[in-house]
């Protein structure tokens, strides 16, 4: 299993957590897992919406002490 790449997008308004994730997903290889950290309240729903629409895979999605930890696997 490849190493999990951390995308720390806490406390950011622009470009914002989802845009940061998209940037890192483009740099990643198929099969890579990325973990997004976000303090944006909307990330818990916004990120899975994009991931599912584009056809990647949500591995986990949880909020720990005010921070969303969302693990995504690049599927294509």
């Amino acid at each position, binding site marked *: 299993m490849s190493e999990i790449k951390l995308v720390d997008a806490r406390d950011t308004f622009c470009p914002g957590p989802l*845009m940061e994730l998209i940037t890192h997903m483009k740099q990643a290889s198929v099969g890579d897992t990325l973990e997004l950290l976000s303090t944006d309240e909307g990330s818990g729903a916004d990120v899975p919406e994009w991931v599912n629409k584009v056809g990647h895979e949500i591995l986990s999605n949880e909020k720990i002490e005010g921070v969303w930890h969302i693990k995504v696997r690049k599927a294509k």
Partner: protein
Amino acid sequence: MRILVVGGGTGGTIVANNLARRLSGEIRAGKVKITMLSASDKHMYQPGLLYVAFGQMMPDELYRDQASLLESSIDFHVDPVEQFELDKNQVKTKSGKVYMYDVMVIATGSRIVPEQIPGLAEGAETFYSEAGAVKMFKRLREFQGGKIAVVVGVPHKCPIAPVEVIFSLNDYFKARGIRDKVTIKYHYPIGRIHTIKEVATWAKPEFDRMGIEYETLFNVKEVDVQNKVVKSEEDTEYAYDLLIAIPPHRGMEVIEKNGLGEGGWIPTDRHKLTMNGHDNVYVVGDTTNLPVSKTGSAAHFEAEVISENISSIVKIGTPVRDYDGKVYCFIETGHDSATYAMFNYQNPPNLKPPSKPMHWFKMSYNKMYWTSVRGLL
């Protein structure tokens, strides 16, 4: 102390000038030397490209000689760095020279990479280069009606540009009296029309009022140039007559080749602005991997923190400030009104209604930039 600034864009130039002024006594005494290495003898005011694309500025208005912007005490060379040898505190340049440093500031910036999306370079107009902006204006000028698609690559410099180009297109075709013959469709990568929630909330009714169509969750996958169709990663597509792209960006090739950061973005401490693992290497502007906007404004505020800290290290042996993520972006909301977004790591922007005075301020800033980059404003 030998201070080496690599890159002569907004961030590098402000750092160098600010340091030259703060450390003028030490420079005169021979205790500090500032050297700048750049790839170009010219400095471009990049935000002006949007105006070139709409025939409101001429390309020659965007440039100054880099040497004319620098304090005379700065040792400036047009000789780009090719090798970074961080373990030896030195760099090697294209001409073969070696420059040693005690402190280095990397300000190499970013570049557009439309070629990463099949068909985009051939099929889309863009205003992120001088040649592109001029070509885009000529295409707009000859456009008599039809469907214009605006698409947005990720990541991109100047995150406000996608909405600004929409407002400018609306005003441009209104002024020509053919707005009713032009369909403008905006495509954006995430699930709302701008990444900043407050900008999205404000812009949506503006788009509706202007009759702008939009599709969100649209990441450009490819352009079928022959059939004039743009396709998304999300399996949707749009047939256009004229395609305008905010192209995707990467950091500079030299950063990638030297293994300093994936995608050309250098891992940077978000408050200290030092390169991770290298306390004597600072990173400014687009070159960082920070989750802040890639804009001249972010580079400007980062540059002030870096120069104040390097200066205080020389004078009292310790840095004095942390970067708080501050960014200030003008938002042109057409050809005669504007607003702005100011935010940092902790505080979201609070958008004010667009006004004519704010547009005039932006027009003034287009000239004041040259004062700003000299480190005076």
